[in-house]
Structures are given as structure tokens and as C-alpha cells.
């Protein structure tokens, strides 16, 4: 009985970690700048490739993963400074621009990298509860998701950068009048978002087969989590991931992955009818 229960909790934790890690970067960029980064999947892919190439060249896995996240973050900052900053007053156009970038990168990868690349195996190690065995790496992923959320909390609520970022988010003109260099805050936030996307890729790199279009695996989940969560990462993404995680886990158990995905999407469409500003918008209104 305990083993069954643990198995259910474990599966939920797995889905929850996936949703949090996939959505965190997207949610930060959306919350800060109100734009959706359609190249999110490509940043994830960047993290995956850097990690895999690092490991294949002899780096230990955690170091390679850090490199993956950092590379994605760096590319994010460069992209923001060259292209995205021109489009802040046109949120829809910035979506299209990132979509264009996404197309260029995916197809460019197909041209340069070929359609597949040897992967690195999942770190072995498992533990048993009752008659079931579980992969230890999945627990690492769950822990990473929790650490990421705590990290975001500390970054945005406990550091001076966080204060500047929140000020910029609330009222950019006023922040600028008070001497905040808002362009830098935007660039840094975009970089953090991109680095988190890269981290997501880096963490899942050992569990996947490598193809240049693999970003797709993450983006549907990332997008629906952000839609349900709304514009506040801390207030929105976690509850959204819990709710969607429960829906997804039960549907997965009932009828497999794809039904889980579709069911999640239907849940999202129902949720936005009731809570158009997402969970965080609803919580913020209640708190007022």
C-alpha cells in the first residue's frame, strides 16, 4: 500500500519538476517584459547540446550542465541587446521576432548538426520501495525544481537586483526616473530566463535522445503552465504546476502520455475562461 502511494507521489513529483523547470525561464521573461519567448525551446535545446558535448569531451556531468545553462543565458543577453530591446513597445511583434529566431536556429541546427547526435545515458542508480524501483536521477530533477523556485524567490525578493527588477516590472517610467537602468534590468532578466531554459535542457539532457527539433517536447507544457500561472512567477508558476501536475499524473495513469497532454490543454482552456489573468492574477486580486 505504501509502495503504491509512493509510486503515485513519485510520478506526480516527476511531472511537477518537468513543468516547473520547463516553464520557469519562460515565466520570468513573460512576467518581466510581457513578451512570450517563442525561442524558448531553442534555449532549452542549447542547454542540452552544450551539456552533451561537454560530457562527451570529458567534463563531469554537473559542470557540463552549468556550462549549458550559462551558455544559454549568455546567448539570451546578446539576443536581448541586439534584437528584443527594439520591440518592447510592441509585445506581439516581439513574439514574432523570437519565432523567426526559433525557425532560423532549428533549421540551422538541422543543417549543421544533422538530424541526430549520440546521447549520453541517464546516470544510473535506483532505489526500491516495496516491489517498485525508481530512478534516483528523477529525484535529482525534483530537487532541482525546488531549488530553482527557491533561487528565484531569493533573487527577486531578497537581493537588490530583485528590488530593481520588481520596480521595473511595476512601473518602468517611474523606475527610470528614480535612476534604475531599466535596459540593463531587462537584459539581465532575459538572460536569467534564458539561463533557466538552458538549465532545464541541461538537466533533462541525459534522459533524452538528441534531435534538433526536441525543443518541441518542452514548449507545450511550458506555455500552458505560464498561461495558467499568469504573469507572476512565484505566485503563479508553482500553483499552476501543482494543479496541472495532478491533472496530468492522473490522466497519464489512466490513458497514457498524449491523453495527459491533451487533458492538460483542455484544463487550461477551461481555466482561462474563469481566471483570465491566471492563478497569480486571481491571488493578487484576492489579496487586495
Amino acid at each position, binding site marked *: 500500500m505504501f509502495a503504491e502511494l509512493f509510486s503515485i507521489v513519485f510520478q506526480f513529483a516527476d511531472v511537477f519538476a518537468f513543468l516547473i523547470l520547463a516553464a520557469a525561464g519562460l515565466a520570468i521573461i513573460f512576467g518581466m517584459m510581457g513578451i512570450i519567448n517563442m525561442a524558448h525551446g531553442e534555449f532549452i535545446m542549447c542547454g542540452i547540446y552544450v551539456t552533451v558535448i561537454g560530457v562527451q569531451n570529458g567534463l563531469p556531468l554537473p559542470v557540463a550542465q552549468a556550462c549549458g545553462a550559462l551558455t544559454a543565458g549568455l546567448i539570451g543577453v546578446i539576443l536581448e541587446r541586439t534584437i528584443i530591446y527594439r520591440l518592447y513597445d510592441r509585445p*506581439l511583434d516581439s513574439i514574432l521576432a523570437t519565432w*523567426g529566431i526559433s525557425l532560423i536556429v532549428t533549421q540551422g541546427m538541422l543543417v549543421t548538426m544533422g538530424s541526430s547526435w549520440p546521447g549520453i545515458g541517464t546516470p544510473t542508480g535506483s532505489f526500491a520501495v516495496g516491489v517498485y524501483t525508481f530512478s534516483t536521477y528523477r529525484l535529482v530533477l525534483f530537487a532541482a525544481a525546488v531549488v530553482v523556485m527557491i533561487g528565484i524567490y531569493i533573487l527577486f525578493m531578497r537581493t537588490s537586483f530583485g528590488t530593481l527588477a520588481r520596480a521595473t516590472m511595476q512601473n518602468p517610467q517611474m523606475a527610470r526616473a528614480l535612476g534604475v537602468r531599466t535596459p540593463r534590468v531587462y537584459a539581465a532578466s532575459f538572460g536569467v530566463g534564458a539561463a533557466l531554459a538552458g538549465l532545464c535542457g541541461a538537466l533533462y539532457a541525459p534522459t533524452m535522445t538528441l534531435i534538433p527539433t526536441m525543443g*518541441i517536447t518542452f514548449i507545450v507544457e511550458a*506555455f500552458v503552465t505560464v498561461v495558467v500561472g499568469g504573469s507572476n512567477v512565484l505566485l503563479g508558476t508553482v500553483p499552476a504546476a501543482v494543479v496541472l501536475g495532478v491533472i496530468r499524473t492522473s490522466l497519464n495513469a489512466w490513458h497514457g502520455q498524449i491523453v495527459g497532454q491533451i487533458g492538460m490543454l483542455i484544463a487550461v482552456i477551461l481555466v482561462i475562461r474563469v481566471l*483570465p489573468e491566471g492563478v497569480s492574477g486571481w491571488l493578487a486580486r484576492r489579496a487586495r
Partner: protein
Amino acid sequence: MLEALRSLNGPQTLGNGRVFWSGFALVSLIAIAYPFGFDPYDVGNTAYFLIWIFAALGLSLMWGYTGILSFGQMAFFGVAGYGYGVISINLAATGGMTLVAFVAAVGVAAAFAAVLGYFMIYGRVGGVYFGIVTFATTLALAAFMGQTAGPEWAIGSARFNGFNGMGGMPSLELPWFGEPVLLEGTPLYYAVLFMLLATYLGLRWLVNGRFGNVLVAIREDPLRAELLGYDVRKYQLGVFVLGSSLAAVSGGLYTAWGQFITPATMGLPSAAMPIIWVAFSGRGDLTATLVGTFVLLLSFQALTVYSQQYALILMGLLLLVTVLFVPAGFILGFGRRLKRLHDRVLNTERRPS
């Protein structure tokens, strides 16, 4: 006659003068004369380009005129494509029944658009969210159809076949006196051409009328439009269903043209294509969308012969350049310049010497 023509003109479209309509008549005549003297295979290929333009016009209506950016055109395209397959295969349709299957497939897609649109528009989801939800829906549909490989995934005798796609549906047939006409090659070209002309003129009439004025008012300021007493949601939903149904028309025709539909048509990068055509052409004008989409499809096809990847990279670059430097769109910008030139010439002619 003149009265009818006048209702097609208005502030919501470029090209209202005698010069434009003479050009329009000329282009239409060329399009009608084109199959004479060309290989039926090439004519069928041209019909293929025309088929996609419906989806582009629908997106122009939603995005350019009403301000709803839907990323879901290819989802409705796919639903109608699969819908046509399922209905026509199960009816073993021939003759006029294929047309019934086609209309029913578009109807299914329209109903799907109505349901999806109801939840989003009446939930007052707008702008960015609208894009994400339609996008996620499209990708989820593609993923769903991609895994329907086994024999258990079928409706009646129509198998979905997962990633490989559904095939074996009949071509459209037009009931004619005595013998039905199989819509392939040249007959298909004419059918699509006339449908396209009718759609284009119909949309011009729509946007230049009272309905179109309300749409533009909603695009400019939804709140103000609402305060003036219009039920914004009703108009938005109507336009969403109409625009998505046009994508469905494309999907149905495409499936009947190639007797084939795959999940990849709904996935990436395919889902980005209508956005790129319309953004490049100029979303704010139907004529620009029509012309630009045709030009892009033609050049894309020419490039794909060499390398599909490079062609797609170029499309991505085109989208990026359009957004950064020509947000109103290339063809529309060109059209406006022509109009200004034309006006200037007229003014100098009229000036008393």
C-alpha cells in the same frame, strides 16, 4: 453594377480607384487565360499555391483588421483536412457527395473554432495569451495525430496512420450535366480560382461595410468600441470563426488536391507559415496579403527544390526582418508608396496651368 462595385471600395482597403480595378480585371483575365498553353501539371501546381491563400486571407481578417493574433490557422487547416478524409472515406463519396464532405469538414473545423474561441474570447483572453493558447492547441493536435498509428485509431473505415498521415480520400468532384467533373489539374485550378476571387471580393465587401468598421474600431481600441455600445466579444468570436474557417477551406482543398494529410502540416515549422506570409505581405490589407502570399509561396517552392532547411531559414529571417524594419509589411508598404505616387501624378494633372 456600379453600386455593387462601390460597396467593395472603402477606407479599409487599398486600391479603390479605376486604375486598381482595371489592373484587377487584367490580372483576373490573365489568371483565367493561363491554363491555355501550359502543361496541366503546372496548372495543378499553381492551383496548389492558390489553395493556401484562403488561410492567409483569414489571418489577415483576424489579425490585421480585428487585432486577434491567432497562431492556430494550421490547426483548423488540419482539422478540416482530417475531417474531409474521415467523412469522404466513410461515405465512399463520389460526385456531389465529395462536395458535401468538404462542406461538412469545414463545418467541423468552424465548430471547433467556435468552441475554442468562446472560451478564450468570453474569458477575455487577448493579445499574447490568445497567441499562446492557439499555438499550444496546434502543437498538441499535431502531437496527438502523430501518435495515432495503430489500427485502433480510426473513425469508421478511415485510419489515421499516425505520423505517416491519412491517405486514400477521393478528389473533389463537381456534379455537372450528365458526367461529374473530377477536380484535378485544370478544372481544380478554375474551381480554386473562382472560390478565391469570390472570397477576396466577399471579404472586401465585408470589411468596407458596417461590420468592417466595427472590426477596425475593436482593433484600435476594444474598450472604446465597447463603450460605444458594440458587443466586442460577439464580433471577435464571429471573426475568429470566419477566419479559422478560411484556413479550414485551405485544409479541405489541400487534402482533396493531394489526397493526403499528415500531422506535420499542423506542427512546427508549418504552423509558422501563415504568420510569415501575412506579416511579410502586410496584415492590414487583403490585397497585399493575397499578392504577398502568392509571391512567397512561389519563391518558397523554388527554393525548396534546392534545400528545404535553407528555405525555412530564409523564411525565419524574412519574419525577423519584417518585424524589425517593415512592421506594416513589404507588399503593403509598396502598395502605399504606389498610391502616393498615383495621387501625386493626379494632383499635378489637375493643377491649372
